[in-house]
């Protein structure tokens, strides 16, 4: 190594002489040899440089992967914490609901056939109590860590099913929903109900964003397309009020909501559903107005 370095340095200096110098045959041969050596070394160096670059890329990719895994872990922890929290909340609320229900029924029995108006009020108390209990049941069902039941699905069929669920809701609000579905999409593996839940959440968010956006924002689009050979892309685009930079960061956090009566769970649950399907759910503001929520989902090919 030492000798090579010494050879390169003077060689370079000699390679660009200002004045032509007369050279002996021996000197010429030595120069040629030196040139060959230099070229070899340059190629070698370029190869090493390339290898180093590739190594750096690999390292970067590994870093990204670690970062993704860390995020995933954090997310799983958050979902777990949320489920825990909801479970204890449900327990705490069920206790007084049980008491209220029993008291009201006891009062009804005590009144027997007297005081029909009071009886009616007691019945209202019981009914509303049951309503509250049903909300808790739904909340629990929503967060239940049930494993999704994967079946082979046509994502366009899932989208159409979802639209038929919500179309009345859309038309009474004087909004328009457009579909741009790619008819040649390969099937996916997924849980029909869970994916409908995600789509419903995105569509109803869009509707609310358009309500906030004023009278002239009334059109939204659902689009399905092929992102690449193994991935399908679903986009829900609205012409609503868009997402502020401040809200964009917290959009998918649990309990974050920009709506006065929101729970702040729709998007975080949607994201964990999409991720359980091996996809990603993200949001961006449109160039014009409104926002687009989009998720990817792997195709069922090669499995």
């Amino acid at each position, binding site marked *: 190594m030492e000798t090579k370095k010494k050879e390169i340095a003077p060689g370079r200096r000699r390679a660009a002489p200002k004045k032509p110098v007369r050279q002996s045959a021996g000197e010429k041969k030595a120069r040629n040899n030196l040139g060959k050596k230099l070229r070899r070394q340059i190629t070698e160096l370029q190869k090493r440089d390339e290898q180093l670059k590739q190594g750096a890329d690999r390292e970067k990719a590994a870093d990204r992967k670690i970062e993704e895994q860390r995020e995933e872990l954090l997310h799983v922890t958050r979902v777990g914490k949320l489920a825990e929290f909801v*479970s204890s909340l449900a327990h705490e609320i069920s*206790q007084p609901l049980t*008491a*209220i*229900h*029993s008291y009201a029924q006891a009062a009804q029995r005590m009144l027997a056939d007297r005081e029909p108006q009071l009886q009616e009020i007691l019945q209202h108390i019981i009914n509303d109590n049951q309503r509250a209990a049903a909300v808790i049941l739904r909340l629990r069902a929503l967060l239940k860590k049930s494993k999704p039941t994967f079946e082979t699905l046509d994502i366009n069929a899932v989208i159409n099913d979802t639209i038929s669920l919500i179309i009345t809701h859309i038309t009474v609000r004087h909004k328009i929903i457009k579909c741009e579905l790619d008819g040649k999409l390969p099937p996916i593996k997924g849980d029909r109900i869970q994916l409908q839940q995600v789509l419903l959440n995105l569509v109803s968010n869009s509707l609310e964003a358009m309500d906030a956006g004023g009278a002239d924002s009334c059109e939204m689009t659902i689009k399905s397309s092929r992102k690449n050979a193994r991935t399908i892309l679903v986009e829900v685009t609205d012409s609503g009020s868009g997402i502020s930079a401040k809200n964009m960061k917290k959009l998918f956090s649990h309990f974050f909501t920009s709506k006065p009566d929101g729970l702040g769970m729709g998007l975080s649950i949607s994201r964990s559903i999409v991720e359980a399907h091996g996809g990603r759910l993200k949001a961006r503001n449109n160039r014009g107005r409104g926002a687009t929520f989009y998720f990817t989902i792997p195709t069922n090919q090669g499995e």
Partner: protein
Amino acid sequence: MFSKRKLIYILDDDESVCCALKTLLLTYEFEVMTFNSAKGFFDAVPMDAQGCLVLDIHMSGSDGWTVQKRLLDSGSKLSVIFISAEKKESAADRALKVGAVGFLQKPFDGQTLVDLIDRAVKNMDSTIKK
């Protein structure tokens, strides 16, 4: 004078649940005793007591399962109805496996509880007659 009314014990660490269930069961002419802790229950109720125990599963200290095990181990004749505010599909199965008359998810309808109690009491009567 010996009371002919059936005796129902309620063991739930939530005071308002105890009180409300008692109020309701009194309208059905049951005799009712309530307890907020397993200790209070075992201190007051003799092991040979008869009747029906409405037992909450999720309690601080000894939970419902522990109480039921202790009752079984001591040869108690009490019929047990489990109640719980926690939603676990397995709880109902487990309740029946450990010999309970039934399991009710809170909040439940009063009549459902009374029907279960009636069934438990009938079972008891028929065993005694045998």
